[in-house]
């Protein structure tokens, strides 16, 4: 147990009978059900929670909510490690292990704290100014600087948790469940509209859980409980706790992060249940009831542990039943903190004095003090806090009209400084929604200007600058009625509950308290260690825009997003510029409101679900055959089929030899297939391909290249005529979707009146290719009713029939240069077909071959591969394929571009073959062919495909070479990794030059 027990004997929304054990910085503590980590630490007398970001100053707990900018901790370790979590928001659970961030070796004895001693040497921009030169050394400095600053440690192992999205649609989303939000929900629920209430806390009620006022003679927390119970039976109302609305986008699209399991002991977190759920919600209406955040005052050493917001102190007393200190001094510029003073006193905290900068606070609050014998020091300020790891006292002086300190100085001993600088409406979501803010001179705050937002959103309660309880309740009910009317639902008359009078704010501006010594630091942004002198420096150095101030000092950045510092920084900047807050302006708030884990952003798109792996219907067949797969686009295709002990190279060469000597079998199913029907089919095909199609007879196939409008090849393939006005088009695997989208774009945008229908049927048909001198024999053996004689079924023809008793479309086409058939069957029959072919081919020595083998075989024939020989800058003429361009055609896509001067100029790179002088040397693909002119050397071409050929027993390559068509027989030089390689230019054809094998 620790030195103090600050737990009150009674009161609060906690269950003292349910004790929960946890550790903080490896020490064991006990809290109770209903505690946050912060309330449990305070109950156990832990003052020092962390070290500050830059200066390593000791820091404690300064609030009880989302505005906490000091008590950031990390929770868990190993595969369940979360850093930079807010101690004031996380619930403790049995076995929780939390620790401080950025301190070493411990928060008590932090080596980095020495930095604080030299803090005068570390103004904003220090690192960038000091470590600018020599520039190359920044990498070395940066490492040391980053490790001494930084926020928390990144996890080192893979996250054990899962995350997911939840999409949903509502008529009304209510953000916040304080008085305004709960009242809105109660008013809207009976209408039947689908309503989502989002609350970041683990309990509904917001400020009602901390307030000491009365609603209908109930405590505010009892009232919240009774309204919650009233809402629960409504099926149309979803109450989401532990959920932060993080983003507000166009079209009333909202994102919210639900923390599903973080509050549960690790041993009962069930696998399968996501740790966090990222809600993506579309809604007709939004009511923002996000409340307000109390503003700190800016005074000397205002970051010491024990300096706390009044709203935090009252939450600890009223909600958590803990005393945040023993002896308190309150420092305020408005009325609201007076209630806290009374509550502290009644809970047994000695309130030594209340220090108010106003000369004469209203009689009403003065009476409150008199009744409780609390001393009031009006017209005075706390200008310095004493103590280091905990407050030991304050120095108070009067403040004269010139905003300077009087000569009087009063020291008061205390361990708690309660402060209130007025209230800042939480306008982040309103701003994200596109709304602009206006400055309220009376309340000294920025509040929503509802006229400036075009989305269906209303702000109610204190986030709208309406700070009294009665106003919050009535605005909530009215907004609900309005939202229901907008959404077409009926609402009943509102029933406004009776409220005991609550204090209004009435602040007097006090943006920074003068200090007696320059060395005393006054923090504007505790989270980023930004002081008043940093803001002043930024302004002196010309960073006068609020956006520049933010980037120069880091004010308002990071997990805290300036929730407490924003207005104070603006006001100080305005004072420095002798200007006003509205003139200085504010930064636009951006999502997320509070940090979102990367896990939640990724959701289920991790691991095996990161991307689709498309598989052909033969995938398992290949797997059983021991195939090694290779991704081709999204497809997983067999690269090669190794036998025991074989290397990839050995396997590929064996596969190539099998095709050339007897017969091989290949899965071509992933090739794109399009079914084209309708009277205008031929017209469409003629436009898509560069070559002519009018003479294509029924049952015939033809190869074609497709060009984009720029004249460059983007795909190629074979199209067959299946019947009158019925064609079967094939594309490359990678371009199947691209070609289909390209066709649809033309049909939907340009050729609307064409009567033609294109359907992707890639996966309807599996395609099994058999290739080799024995292909015909294999087909005969497996059994087919198609006449396979050369006369009846020549090369580049198509026939329907059965193969192995399976209905099939058989295309006699070849990508290997061998006699070859591509057998198309409905996908579910492909494994049966493959097995039958393998069985029938056993005696012929049939072997499956993969992607690498087919690439080598096609390169031997000089067949281009889209994406290797073409790269989006290659015309058919560059490839020596002028035969694939219809000279007599009146039009086709890309026709005009082919006449552009640049596409017809001499010197373009053209397809050639290369044979290295050293036959065993395989040139790396992408190697450059060099040209030396004078003393200079430049590239005159590049190698596009290069392989060891099993057929030729030597290396072969295809290359794009300047004027290559005219340079066969020349010798060229390549420089590869400092080595010179010589090769002879040949025509791009190394095998069966007259095509006799194909046509046999």
């Amino acid at each position: 147990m620790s030195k103090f027990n600050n737990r009150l004997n009674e009161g609060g929304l906690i269950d003292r009978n349910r004790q929960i054990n946890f550790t903080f910085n490896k020490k064991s503590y006990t809290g109770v059900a209903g505690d946050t980590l912060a309330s449990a630490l305070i109950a156990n007398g832990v003052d020092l929670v962390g070290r500050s970001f830059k200066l390593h100053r000791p820091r404690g707990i300064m609030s009880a909510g989302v505005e906490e900018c000091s008590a950031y901790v990390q929770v868990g370790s190993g595969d369940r490690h979360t850093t930079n979590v807010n101690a004031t928001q996380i619930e403790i659970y049995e076995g929780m292990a939390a620790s401080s961030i950025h301190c070493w070796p411990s928060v008590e004895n932090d080596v980095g704290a020495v930095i604080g001693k030299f803090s005068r040497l570390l103004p904003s921009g220090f690192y960038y100014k000091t470590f600018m030169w020599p520039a190359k050394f920044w990498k070395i400095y940066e490492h040391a600087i980053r490790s001494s600053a930084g926020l928390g440690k990144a996890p080192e192992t893979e996250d054990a948790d899962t995350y997911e999205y939840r999409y949903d649609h509502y008529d009304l989303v209510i953000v916040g469940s304080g008085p305004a939000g709960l009242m809105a929900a109660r008013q809207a629920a009976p209408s039947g509209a689908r309503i989502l209430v989002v609350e970041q806390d683990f309990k509904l009620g917001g400020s009602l859980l901390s307030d000491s006022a009365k609603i209908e003679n109930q405590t505010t927390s009892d009232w919240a409980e009774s309204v919650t119970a009233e809402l629960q039976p409504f099926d149309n109302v979803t109450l989401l706790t532990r959920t932060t609305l993080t983003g507000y986008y166009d079209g009333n699209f909202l994102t919210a992060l639900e923390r599903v399991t973080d509050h549960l002991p690790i041993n009962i977190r069930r696998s399968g249940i996501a740790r966090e759920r990222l809600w993506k919600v579309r809604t007709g209406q939004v009511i923002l009831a996000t409340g307000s955040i109390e503003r700190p005052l800016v005074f000397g050493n205002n970051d010491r542990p024990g300096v706390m917001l009044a709203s935090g102190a009252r939450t600890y007393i009223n909600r958590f039943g803990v005393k945040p200190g023993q002896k308190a001094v309150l420092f305020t510029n408005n009325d609201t903190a007076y209630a806290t003073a009374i509550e502290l006193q009644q809970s047994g905290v000695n309130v030594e004095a209340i220090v108010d900068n106003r000369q004469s606070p209203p009689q009403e609050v003065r009476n409150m003090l008199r009744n409780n014998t609390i001393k009031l020091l009006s017209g005075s300020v706390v200008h310095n806090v004493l103590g280091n790891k905990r407050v030991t006292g304050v120095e108070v002086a009067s403040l004269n009209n010139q905003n300077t300190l009087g000569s009087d100085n009063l020291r008061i001993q205390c361990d708690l400084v309660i402060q209130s600088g007025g209230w800042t409406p939480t306008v982040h979501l309103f701003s994200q929604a596109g709304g602009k803010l206006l400055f309220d001179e009376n309340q000294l705050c920025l509040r929503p200007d509802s006229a400036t937002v075009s989305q269906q959103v209303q702000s109610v309660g204190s986030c709208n600058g309406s700070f009294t309880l009665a106003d919050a309740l009535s605005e909530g009910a009215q907004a609900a009625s309005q939202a229901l009317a907008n959404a077409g639902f009926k609402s009943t008359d509102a029933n406004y509950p009776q409220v005991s009078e609550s204090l209004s704010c009435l602040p007097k501006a006090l943006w920074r308290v003068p200090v007696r010594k320059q060395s005393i630091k006054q923090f504007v942004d505790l989270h980023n260690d930004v002081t008043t002198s940093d803001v002043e420096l930024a302004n002196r150095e010309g960073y006068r825009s609020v956006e520049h101030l933010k980037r120069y000092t880091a004010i308002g950045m990071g997990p805290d997003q300036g929730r407490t510092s924003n207005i104070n920084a603006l006001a100080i900047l305005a004072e420095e510029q002798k200007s006003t807050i509205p003139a200085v302006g504010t930064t636009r708030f951006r999502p997320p409101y509070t940090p979102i884990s990367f896990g939640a952003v990724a959701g289920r798109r991790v691991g095996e679900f990161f991307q689709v792996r498309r598989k052909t219907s033969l995938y398992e067949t290949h797997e059983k055959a021991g195939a090694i797969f290779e991704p081709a686009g999204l497809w997983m295709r067999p690269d090669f089929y190794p036998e025991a002990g074989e290397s990839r190279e050995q396997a590929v060469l064996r596969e190539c030899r099998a095709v050339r000597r007897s017969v091989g079998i290949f899965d071509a199913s992933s090739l794109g297939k399009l079914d084209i029907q309708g009277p205008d089919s031929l017209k469409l095909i003629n436009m898509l391909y560069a070559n002519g199609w009018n003479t294509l007879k029924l049952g015939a196939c033809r190869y074609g290249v497709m060009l984009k409008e720029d004249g460059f090849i983007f795909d190629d393939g074979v199209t067959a005529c299946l019947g009158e006005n019925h064609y079967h088009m094939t594309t490359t695997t990678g371009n199947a979707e691209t070609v289909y989208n390209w066709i649809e774009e033309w049909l939907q945008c340009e050729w609307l009146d064409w009567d033609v229908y294109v359907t992707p049927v890639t996966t309807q048909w599996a395609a099994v290719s058999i290739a080799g001198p024995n292909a015909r024999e294999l087909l005969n053996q497996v059994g087919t009713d198609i006449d396979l004689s050369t006369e009846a079924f020549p090369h580049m023809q198509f026939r329907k029939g059965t193969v192995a008793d399976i209905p099939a479309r058989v295309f006699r086409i070849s990508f290997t240069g061998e006699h070859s058939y591509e057998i198309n069957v409905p996908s579910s029959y492909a494994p049966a077909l493959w097995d039958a072919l393998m069985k029938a081919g056993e005696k012929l020595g049939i072997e499956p071959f993969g992607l690498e083998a087919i690439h080598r075989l096609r390169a031997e024939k000089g067949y281009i591969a889209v994406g290797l020989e073409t790269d989006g800058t290659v015309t058919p003429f560059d490839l020596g394929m002028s035969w694939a361009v219809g000279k007599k055609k009146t039009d086709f896509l890309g026709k005009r571009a082919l006449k552009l001067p640049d596409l017809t100029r001499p010197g373009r790179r053209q397809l050639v073959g290369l044979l290295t002088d050293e036959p065993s040397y395989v040139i790396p693909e992408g190697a450059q062919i060099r040209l030396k002119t004078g003393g200079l050397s430049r590239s005159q071409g590049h190698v596009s495909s290069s392989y060891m050929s099993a057929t030729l027993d030597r290396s072969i390559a295809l290359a794009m070479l300047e004027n290559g068509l005219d340079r066969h027989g020349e010798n060229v030089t390549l420089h590869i990794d400092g080595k010179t390689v010589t090769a002879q230019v040949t025509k791009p054809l190394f095998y069966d030059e007259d095509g006799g094998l194909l046509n046999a």
Partner: protein
Amino acid sequence: MLDAITKPNKVPRTGAITTRLLQQSTNLKQVKLTDVSFQGKFILWGNPEDSNFIQSVQTATGLSLPRQCGEVSEKGPYRAIWANPKRWYLICEEQNETELAERLADSGQIHMSVTDGQCCFHLKGPSAVDLLKKGCSLNFNDTHFATGQCLQTRLAITKVFLHRKGADSFDIYVERSYSEYIWGWLLDAAKEYSS
């Protein structure tokens, strides 16, 4: 048209989902996931403004084709799903496939079988909607997605058709090569409901 009308009885067919993955669906609670991919599926093309087209389809199949996004019409064992302004999916049980193919051929209209190119999973159970909401941004309220409607949408990262057959009962049509991803994704996302 040949197009697998004459289906050989003795040749085994292989579904897109492996036996191992099919078996994993038996562990699910609160939702039931079954593969019904062998049902017959055709695409039909035509101009709905052309009364000859509408009439010939009706004569051949009895179906009056739906004209609006989301609409489905049924007649006897056949179902027509609106896919785009000129395109429909025609669905039937496996045993009716040959008959429907013949009827479509009789109609003389442009059509093709996609039985093997499209998979169909049936998802049913009290958590079905919650499960789909993990990966689909459709509005599942019955005012926007009523029983009987079929909508084209995105589930996880793939394109699907969702045919709502009841408050918590759906047919999910997905292209064959994406089907294993969707099947595995549904199993994984449904782990929450397994006990």
